């Protein structure tokens, strides 16, 4: 067919990921710059809430130590990242289906898999940027905190009873080298990416966004709970990825590669299930 403006090439075969680039271009606009900037700011605020009381007035008898700041920040920030993944992704598929834009996209010459893959890929890239930027920005401040408070055997005051501090005692970690620190960030990212994949799967077969969000929050609860109480038995799961990060921050020596790889593998399996399910869903 020809017009004044151009001619479309006659196509006999269409590629397996036809239109993926165009869809990623659309979805990236959802993540950049608004969501990424927002979540970096949220991460920095969380860090600020941890840093300011730590730096202002350490207990006269007990130095809370660098470990309190490091472990506290990573715990709260990981949980917030997981919650945000559930919140941002609950409408990624079902919201589009309910609004009618999923049907609009599925009527185009693209595979439905491309819709899911594009949303997953952009969320994964978005969170990679958020976690890398926030993590990199706080690293020099953490390094400064080590210089100021030192590491080693430290105590953290939780409450004070009859002038005796009661709290967490133990040997906190030294600040890891930047390369290892990036590994910890990658583990948090892997867990977040798993939540994104799971939310997409839920969105392909459930009819209610409330149900998707509710189940997503339950999943986040399981991951956080597993990271706190699961121990090494959960190490090859998304909870294990977060558990490994917290263990390293606590000062224990655990491997990061296994939980990261197994969590990413699980994410791909869940994403495959989402593609399969979305392919079979009838769209309005």
């Amino acid at each position: 067919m020809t017009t004044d403006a151009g001619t479309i090439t006659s196509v006999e075969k269409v590629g397996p990921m036809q239109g993926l680039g165009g869809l990623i271009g659309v979805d990236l606009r959802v993540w950049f710059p608004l969501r990424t900037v927002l979540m970096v700011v949220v991460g920095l605020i969380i860090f600020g809430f941890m840093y300011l009381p730590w730096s202002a007035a350490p207990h006269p008898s007990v130095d809370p130590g660098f470990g309190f700041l490091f472990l506290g920040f990573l715990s709260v920030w990981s949980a917030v990242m997981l919650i945000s993944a559930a919140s941002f992704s609950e409408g990624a598929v079902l919201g589009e289906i309910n609004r009618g834009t999923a049907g609009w996209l599925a009527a185009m010459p693209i595979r439905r898999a491309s819709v899911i893959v594009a949303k997953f890929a952009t969320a994964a890239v978005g969170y990679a940027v958020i976690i890398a930027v926030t993590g990199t920005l706080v690293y020099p401040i953490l390094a400064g905190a080590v210089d100021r408070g030192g590491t080693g055997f430290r105590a953290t005051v939780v409450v004070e009873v009859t002038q005796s501090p009661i709290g967490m005692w133990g040997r906190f970690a030294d600040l890891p080298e930047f390369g290892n620190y990036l590994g910890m960030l990658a583990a948090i990212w892997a867990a977040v990416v798993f939540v994104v994949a799971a939310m997409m799967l839920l969105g392909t077969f459930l009819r209610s966004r409330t149900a998707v969000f509710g189940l997503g929050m339950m999943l986040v609860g399981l991951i956080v709970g597993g990271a706190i109480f699961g121990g090494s038995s959960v190490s090859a799961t998304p909870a294990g990825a977060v558990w490994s990060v917290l263990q390293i921050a606590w000062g224990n020596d655990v491997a990061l590669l296994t939980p990261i790889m197994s969590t990413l593998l699980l994410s791909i399996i869940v994403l495959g299930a989402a593609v399969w399910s979305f392919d079979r869903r009838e769209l309005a």
Partner: protein
Amino acid sequence: MTVPAIEIRQLKKRYRKVEALRGLDLTVEAGSVCGFLGPNGAGKTTTMKILIGLISPTSGWAAVHGIDVRGSGLLARSRIGYLPQDPVFPPYQTVRSVIATVGRLYPGHPRGSTLRRRVDELIDRVGMTDKARRRTAGLSGGERQRLGVAQALIGEPDLLILDEPSAGLDPTGRRDMLNLIDEIRAETTVFYSTHILDDVERVSDTVVMISRGAVVAQGDIDEILTVSDTDYAVRLRGDTEALHGRLLDEPWVERIETRRHGDIEDWVVRLSDGSAVERLAPALVESEGHDIVEFHLSDRGLEEAYLALVGADDGD
């Protein structure tokens, strides 16, 4: 032989207890403008959604330009432009970016300045130049409809499927939409559903009428409008009384319906069989005292044809 733009055979679709399509058969010739008529719930949107791959048929077969829409849906969709019944677009995108986005999803699409030029051309064509930078969230129903047509055309499709394109449009918008369909008939096959019979009469070459999930009539619009070869319309001026009486006495005339406006009288003469026209014509000419203004096979308005074929039920 040209491959039909749409070919559907024994298409069935069941939603739990509801049978939406009951063995639908239809053919739409390439290069035609085909109106798809039927009451609410007759299966029009279901048929269109199956063609576009949004839903799967329970059984049967459908092809677009000879491409099976189930087996090679992606390839089939690369040749289709689609306007849904109530078009919805990402609310944060502008009119221009929606069209460009859709353009990029088509295989072999033009790029860069060629794509931009094509987008501008379409925006102009649907009369949205002043709204090109507006976000879709702020568009009225009629504007969304026009944007829907523009994005359906960006892939330069061989088949344009429009689900109720003039629904919800004001009279001006409706006229513009019909003009647009009329304009693009040279570029692509148009298959559109509607309830507005006047629209069909105005722009369609062919019509498919559907009721309760099955086709009740399809063909050229003239064929649909023609009742039979035994009904003739005669328009006369002058004294017709004597002729009327004489014809009624003939054994080959079954009945004459008459309607008078001023000095004009319209008759529909029903003959006993089609060959009796060879007697009717001389009888009209030889009789005196009146002029014959028109004489032809009687047809009916589309509304009459629709009601006769589809019935008054709404299909729900």
